[in-house]
């Protein structure tokens, strides 16, 4: 159930509360008639309407205004129990009461509209800024390898005085750049799969241990500086999961750890299972995350304020998107001693067949 803020009560309740508060205040004032002049009552009722206007929509407030005007006229302005008003002064007062109550309601409503607009504009500006940062980093991430490929091929085509060794190096640069381009494109495609909402996990029995080893092996092809340790809880059962999506999630988490930590650090993967949950932890003892930014890191395009590593801010949002598409959760813990600990939890059906 989504939690609703107090001022977002549904409309029916707002009507009910408006009427109830006007009635209650009127009743109290009525009991105090011997001590209060009826003109003071008008002010008290006006205050009530103003308070309602602070948090309610316009129509419940207008209802409260009209109702309180009627009550004041009927019960408080002499002669009592008629809507008839004897003195001209009272008639003017009643009209003024009504106008003030209405103006009150409309003004508060307008102020709230302006606030809402300002908030929307602010959010939009933030989104645009984030998107611009993304476009900048994306064009950097794509153009750098493209520049490397164009530069290397130009060199090779020109013939020039390239030694065999130069040529091999240039070809290697092209290979590296294409690999990088391919990864970026894959990230973009994954992101758009998440955004499209058509991400349907194809669950099948998955050997999690095998999957982890495969992902680590794929990662080790890039010769990471860090040592990656795999720790599988004995007797980990087969779990029903989308293996390809799980691979992407783990690959992105590990790639992140590899890119943002150094040779002095180590990376651990731990796989554990509880009754109906598979828990995978990817942990490193690197620099970790600034606590004030922990809440943002899974946001699309978000990049740490203080980072020198280039990237697009897509990796972790893909981790979150894919994990949630599989019904799981991802959480970042920042251990006291430093480092980062990502915990993935998937609700899974477990196979009863024993893996030995």
């Amino acid at each position, binding site marked *: 159930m989504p939690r609703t803020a107090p001022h977002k009560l549904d409309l029916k309740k707002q009507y009910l509360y408006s009427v109830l508060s006007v009635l209650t205040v009127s009743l109290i004032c009525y009991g105090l008639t011997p001590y209060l002049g009826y003109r003071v009552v008008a002010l008290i009722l006006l205050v009530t309407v103003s308070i309602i206007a602070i948090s309610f929509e316009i129509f419940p407030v207008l209802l409260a205004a009209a109702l309180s005007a009627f009550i004041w006229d009927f019960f408080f302005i002499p002669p009592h129990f008629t809507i008839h008003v004897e003195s001209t002064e009272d008639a003017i007062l009643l009209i003024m009461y009504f106008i003030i109550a209405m103006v009150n309601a409309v003004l508060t409503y307008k102020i709230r509209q302006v606030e809402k607009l300002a908030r929307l504009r602010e959010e939009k500006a933030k989104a645009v800024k984030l998107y611009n940062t993304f476009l900048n980093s994306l064009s950097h991430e794509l153009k750098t390898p493209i520049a490397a490929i164009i530069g290397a091929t130009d060199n090779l085509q020109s013939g020039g005085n390239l030694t065999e060794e130069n040529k091999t190096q240039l070809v290697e640069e092209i290979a590296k750049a294409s690999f990088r381009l391919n990864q970026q494109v894959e990230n973009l495609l994954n992101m758009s799969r998440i955004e499209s909402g058509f991400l349907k996990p194809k669950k*099948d029995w998955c*050997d999690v241990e*095998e999957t982890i*080893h*495969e992902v680590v092996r794929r990662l080790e092809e890039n010769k990471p500086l860090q040592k990656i340790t795999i720790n599988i809880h004995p007797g980990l059962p087969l779990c029903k999961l989308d*293996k390809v999506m799980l691979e992407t999630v783990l690959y992105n988490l590990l790639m992140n750890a590899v890119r943002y930590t150094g040779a002095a650090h180590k990376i651990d993967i731990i796989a554990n299972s509880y009754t109906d949950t598979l828990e995978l932890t990817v942990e490193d003892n690197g620099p970790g995350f600034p606590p004030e930014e922990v809440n943002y890191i899974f946001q699309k395009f978000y990049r740490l304020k203080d980072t020198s590593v280039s990237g697009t801010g897509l990796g972790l949002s893909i981790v979150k998107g894919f994990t949630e598409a599989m019904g799981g959760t991802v959480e970042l813990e920042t251990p006291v001693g430093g480092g980062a600990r990502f915990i993935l939890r998937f609700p899974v059906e477990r196979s009863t*067949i024993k893996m030995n």
Partner: protein
Amino acid sequence: MNKPGILVIDDEAQMRKLLEITLQTNGYAVTTAGTAKDGLIMAANHPPELVLLDLGLPDKSGHEVLKALRQWYTNPVIILSVQHDEESIVMALDNGANDYLGKPFRTGELLARMRSALRTAITEDGDTTIGSPDLEIDLTARTVKKNKELLKLTLTEYSLLALLARNEGKVLTHQYLLRAIWGPGFISQSQYLRVFIAQLRKKIETDPNRPEYILTESGVGYRFVVK
């Protein structure tokens, strides 16, 4: 000796050019087609030894071309597809494709796939051993040796290994393996397959976590390779 004829059906001129050069320099005779229609006509006029078929064609889907081809064409067809489109890959394999390559692919991979597709499957009665010095699978004697030592395999383990080995280099889908080893009623019981593959790897691989013989094709199936 005649060079084996390869027909490339791909709508991207760049891809056709690249494949033409790569395959010609590796001893194949190459013809290319940019549309499904041209591809089917060319295949009918000069049936090639192997077809490389891109799944994303402009005029007709590659799946339809595959079905049309398979009405009469019995030589191997290798599918070129976008990476991570397992559903489509499995469908193509079920519809008679012999193997697949996800774009972008490495040239070495392409040539290896083509070689194994062109090699006819080893028949059960053939007197053959498959493997490398440290792993020997004798299909006649039904024995498997790891580092010259006889392995104790259960009947199912052996059948699975023999089936994979007989199709050395080719991907076999989960469904295909389940149907062939356990029977049609077990197609959805992929857990058996996972367990037996894990057991087999423990017996035949030097490091079961870094398999060298039985490779996993995520979301598709398994492939037996000899180093």
